[in-house]
């Protein structure tokens, strides 16, 4: 089937404002969701489900959260991991201390706690921009981690700071197999991604982008700076918080505060740079790329050392990985600052005209 919008005429503004205005896109998204919800759990093995797909989805959600703040609202944050940590540890406490709440409400409340932290550390954004703000979000990163490490309440006074996520039980159903955990993660991520997509194409999203593109003009047209920026911090942190909660519950099972270091914040920033700043799809592409790259490199260097009898140590591979990450960031910033999502868009535009060049 050709990727064409020829013949798809729209006679109402409602039809023009659909979430996916082109018919082929709608079909593709439906197929993708069918495969993800039905095909994958049936055919994927345990390793793929719990070591690749679940972390991919969680990172995609965190990247989506960061993208709302950085890509859409233009406020650079280096504190993503801290918001995830708040989500993880607060979810743990809600489930622990208020077991009658249920897991999903606990996740939501944990996300709201992350929002609250996000608003507090977003306050400086009202006075400062750019890398000044980035430095301010570092304060959040260090302070939150310190607080979780030092204040026993967060870890239920665990001596090592490690918490073990309780078994997930929703409406009497236990999520303890890789399949069920994957489906739960997928469901939450899909719903939140849909909400984000809607939000970004309505008034709030436009206000975010207006603030990003030219804050003075945004204010002059009537967009309140304070409310918009703080809302961006709140929504973004909510997404990161829920991602953090799932990081503990559906991915790792046991976590310590040290899992949420600055390094993780950078990793998620890299996802949106490579995937596409200011793009929902980009968050997913970037997360897939950064999740798969280390696996690919390990396999690649494994094969390399096997064939040539070279002794490539694990340390070397991880250093090469660092260099490739860094190099890719520079490469994308120079060559395609809008990331993989833009490449995809260009490909679609070409495809629409195929086989003619213009």
């Amino acid at each position: 089937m050709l990727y064409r919008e020829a013949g798809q005429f729209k006679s109402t503004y409602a039809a023009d404002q659909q979430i996916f205005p082109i018919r082929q896109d709608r079909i593709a998204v439906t197929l993708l969701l069918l495969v993800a919800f039905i095909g994958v759990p049936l055919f994927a093995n345990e390793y793929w489900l719990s070591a690749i797909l679940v972390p991919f989805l969680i990172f995609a959600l965190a990247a989506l959260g960061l993208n709302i703040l950085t890509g859409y609202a233009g406020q650079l944050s280096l504190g993503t991991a801290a918001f995830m940590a708040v989500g993880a540890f607060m979810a743990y406490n809600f489930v622990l201390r208020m077991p009658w709440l249920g897991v999903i409400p606990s996740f939501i409340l944990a996300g709201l706690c992350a929002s609250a932290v996000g608003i507090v550390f977003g306050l400086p954004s009202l006075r400062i921009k750019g890398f000044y703000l980035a430095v301010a979000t570092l304060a959040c990163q260090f302070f939150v981690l310190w607080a979780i490490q030092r204040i026993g309440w967060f870890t239920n006074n665990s001596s090592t700071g490690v918490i073990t996520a309780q078994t997930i039980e929703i409406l009497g159903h236990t999520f303890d197999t890789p399949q069920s955990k994957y489906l739960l993660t997928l469901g939450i991520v899909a719903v939140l991604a849909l909400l984000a997509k809607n939000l970004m194409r309505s008034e709030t999203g436009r206000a975010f982008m207006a603030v990003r593109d030219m804050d003075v003009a945004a204010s002059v047209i009537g967009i309140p700076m304070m409310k918009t920026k703080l809302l961006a911090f709140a929504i973004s942190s909510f997404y990161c918080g829920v991602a953090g909660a799932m990081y503990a519950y559906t991915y790792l099972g046991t976590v310590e505060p040290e899992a949420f270091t600055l390094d993780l914040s950078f990793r998620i920033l890299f996802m949106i740079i490579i995937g596409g700043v200011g793009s929902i799809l980009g968050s997913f592409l970037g997360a897939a790329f950064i999740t798969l790259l280390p696996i690919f490199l390990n396999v690649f260097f494994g094969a390399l050392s096997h064939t040539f009898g070279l002794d490539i140590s694990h340390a070397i591979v991880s250093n090469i990985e660092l260099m490739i990450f860094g190099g890719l960031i520079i490469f994308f910033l120079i060559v395609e600052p809008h990331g993989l999502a833009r490449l995809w868009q260009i490909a679609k535009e070409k495809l629409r005209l195929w086989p003619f060049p213009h």
Partner: protein
Amino acid sequence: MNVSFFFEVLIGGLLAGVMYSLVALGFVLIYKASGVFNFAQGAMVFLAALTFVSLLERGVNFWLALGVTLAVMVVLGMAIERVVLRPLVNQPPITLFMATIGLTFVLEGLSQAVWGSQPHGLELGIADVPMQWLADSTGMFISQFDLIASGVAAVLVAALALFFQYTRVGRALRAVADDHQAALAVGIPLKNIWAIVWAVAGFVALVAGMLWGARNGVQYALTFIALKALPVLILGGFESILGAIVGGLIIGASEKLAEVYLGPMVGGGIESWFAYVIALLFLLVRPQGLFGEKIIDRV
């Protein structure tokens, strides 16, 4: 409260602050000349220290190792200018900032891939012991190493200030910092200037790396001192050498005092964020920093 202990902590903090200033100085140099907030400065410190110590351990003469490391840093600075900055000229500052985060990863990976990731000790022949005569006369324990390190930092800062003020290159640098376009228009070779600045920043990184390395060992954690320099910059303003010094002193002193006097009340370890909180509070009052220029948005 014990007064002499208070002063001991204060002076120790101030001396540590000088070391922060030294790292912050590298940031300021690059920011002044090219408007780039170089997050990779910490990685450069690490690379310089690791290269130097690895050469020493392979039996290379001290001065030769110093020369070779300096050469490496200069070449690296020029390479960064060519490969990273030049293609990104005229991009928004935040893009350049993110590029330097990428650069940080490249440099960290590179230094450890070449020299390995085990920690090294670095011996500069200065003992990190309290000065006996001072302890005898005042009862304060001040490290000899800290004092000498501060002296070195002071000399370096003075030299750079003179360099900026009185040499032709220094004048060109200031012109570039003020206005790239205008500097180009009067015939200042922008690219050479940037290469020089990155080379000088590399040299500052080497000095900082040697001093910090001798004190804490040359290891990956060295890259984190760049994170300590950031609040210093916010406090002092990104474009002021004086700001880097004063900011460093304030951060160093208040951090140590807070750790000693406030730390026990909240469970310790507050050094990791205290500087940031000071910087944040400061931002709310004076966003441009102590010595920064107030920016007026023109519309």
